[in-house]
């Protein structure tokens, strides 16, 4: 293949990053999402996956991705460099919660009851899977390693549920949206866990791009495809699999609460 042709292909390809924020283990979902985005944008869409939030965020910040479905925490961290493309709408709102979960049958009603546990986090850059719990402890002037006996990162909200359900961890911090979707798709797994505490409503993990690229053709195509997803049969099928209502334009202030939590944790010097 000639260098010119390669360059043309590279221009035409649209790279879309995915974090383990949602159920990335579903191949059918990925195939359908890719097919929808490719058709809707008229470009060859590549879905880029990495194990950690940090890797995807780094790719996005370095300009290797046209857009990425990241978490509210990285968005808050890099708010100056990043811009919102769209925010998913779940149960009618662009909001979700973080859950503190424990094995079924455990008597615990607040984070205080989880002291001394082996605690499972999702990712150190996850809002619901780390920041929310860390900020709760920060309010008590505590870092997670001071409150819990041991913390483990599972790099996936589903893995947090697995760790708690199997007894590997005595408690865990998980994305409330993922836990709810799992409870309808894998009820036998979530049934082994129970919710100890629920956070306030927070901005749903958004689709973001480099602020400098917000008005580029590729980002605009992505924006249009996401916003119109609920009006398209194939798009609705993908939304249905994700248990989402659609994507919407939301103000960046939606993530102020997360930014505040971040500041709280940083203030403790974690």
């Amino acid at each position, binding site marked *: 293949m000639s260098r010119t042709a390669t360059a043309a292909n590279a221009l035409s390809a649209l790279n879309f990053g995915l974090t383990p924020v949602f159920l990335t283990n579903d191949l059918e979902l990925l195939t359908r999402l890719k097919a929808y985005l490719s058709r809707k944008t008229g470009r060859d869409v590549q879905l880029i996956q990495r194990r950690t939030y940090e890797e995807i965020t780094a790719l996005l910040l370095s300009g290797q991705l046209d857009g990425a479905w990241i978490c509210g925490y990285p968005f808050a961290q890099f708010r100056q460099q990043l811009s919102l493309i769209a925010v998913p709408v779940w149960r009618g709102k662009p909001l979700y919660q973080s859950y503190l979960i424990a094995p079924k049958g455990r008597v615990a009603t607040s984070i205080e009851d989880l002291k001394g546990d*082996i605690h*499972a986090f999702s990712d150190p850059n996850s809002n619901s899977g780390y920041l929310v719990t860390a900020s709760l402890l920060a309010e008590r002037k505590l870092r997670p390693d001071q409150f819990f*006996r*041991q913390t*483990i*990162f*599972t*790099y996936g909200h589903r*893995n947090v549920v*697995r*760790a708690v359900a*199997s*007894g*590997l*961890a005595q408690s865990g911090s998980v994305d409330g949206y993922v836990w709810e979707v799992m409870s309808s798709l894998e009820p036998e797994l979530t049934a082994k866990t129970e919710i100890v505490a629920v956070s306030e409503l927070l901005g749903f993990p958004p689709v973001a791009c480099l602020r400098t690229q917000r008005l580029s053709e590729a980002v605009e195509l992505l924006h249009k495809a996401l916003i119109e997803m609920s009006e398209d049969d194939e798009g609705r099928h993908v939304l249905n699999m994700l248990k989402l209502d659609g994507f919407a334009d939301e103000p960046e202030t939606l993530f102020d609460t997360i930014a505040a939590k971040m500041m709280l944790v940083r203030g403790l010097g974690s």
Partner: protein
Amino acid sequence: MSGANPVSRLNPMTWPLSFKVPLLVAVLMFTVSAIITNRVLARLEENQEQHLQQLASAYLDGLSASLIPSVFRGDVWEVFDTLDRSRERYRGLNVRWTIVTNAEGKILAASDPAKFPSDTVAEKEVLAHFTAGREVILNEDKATAFLLRPLPYQDREIGKIYAEADIGALLQERSDVLRTLLLTNLLLTFVLAIVGYLAVLRMMRPVRIMSLHLDQASQGKINLIPDSIVMRQSSEFRRLFGRYNVLSQAVNEREFLAVQLAEEEKVASLGRLASGMAHEINNPLGGMFNALDALKKHGTREQVRATSIRLLEHGLTGIRDLVRSTLASYRADQRPRDLTMVDLDDLRLLVKPEAKRKRLNLEWTNEITEAVHVPAVPVRDAVLNLLLNACASSAEDGSVKFHARIESGALVVDVSDQGGGLPAHIREYLERNGAGSVPLDKRSGLGLWIVKRLCDEMNGKLIVVKSSASGTTIRLVVQPKLAELEDAA
């Protein structure tokens, strides 16, 4: 014989072939199947252990390769995730649980975190089953395999994998194989024993046919084996049956000839008897004719007349007695009747001419006083033949003894001569039960055969009491008929 003693029944040499051969087949099958079962199980055990070793090694190889980086980093989740996923990949091993410890011996993660929590030390009882240096330890009593693999990293041990696998399925498979083998072998042995029994029964059929014919022959009835049966046999038995038929034919012909000879002997005996009688009548006749001549010439003389009449009367009386006893012996319409003293005494008259001819001294003792419940005619015939035979055997001027009596209710008659004794084969012939169905050899004449046959008919017994160069005594013993015994009882 139905009355075989119990000891001989216990002796396997005396068991019938139709039982011994299937038993031998069954014993052989049992032995072979026991050896095969033993070998199969030993091989199966070897294979299973080898298979388990390979499977365990593959499991530990796969795990350690994935686990070493995670154990090195102390990444609890990665260790757990690896163990959790390996469950699906190594289903064949049926692992109950796996523990991964770090260099300090603390549990990093286990496949069953509820049982073996992370950041704790595994209980000593759990680890007691594992031995350093032995990767796989089998404990069949607990149906468990214990797996141990150290995790090396740059020549240092950074942790260990402990696993416990359920080998119940392997043991079950082994016991299933054992059961199947036993059942199959038992069934095969049973079927082969039956087949062996039937085969031997079939093979023995010609022997049974032969045995049946020989039994019949021993009872005096020699039947040929029909050609249709002979032709159905294998070559060996066809030849045997053929030879038997040739032999039977020869025996039948011999018996026919013997009967003919007996008839001739009868005629000859009759001739001898007639000649004896003629001689016996002729002797007084000479005297009687002389008396008649004297009467004719000197009948007027009182003394001559009286002497002549006495001589005539004496001669006629002798003739009358002779005729009477002959009639008694050879009456055509003889019916079975009991023996009396007279029946035996009459014989004296019949033998007398022969005794006289050889100038033999006839010593006659008859102790029979009342009728004996034995058939008169055959006894008389038998005793007459014994007496004639004794006369024939004795040298001239010798003596022949007759002694009849009752002993223990049975008629006993001894006839003794002063001959040269009986040859051994004749003695054996006379004393053997049922021998009367076959005639004696030609040289010995037919007299003794007739005696033996008559004796057999009466269920009597002949005993050679004495047989030496100085003479022979033959005893005839005839038991009274059964009715008599019952009456006596």
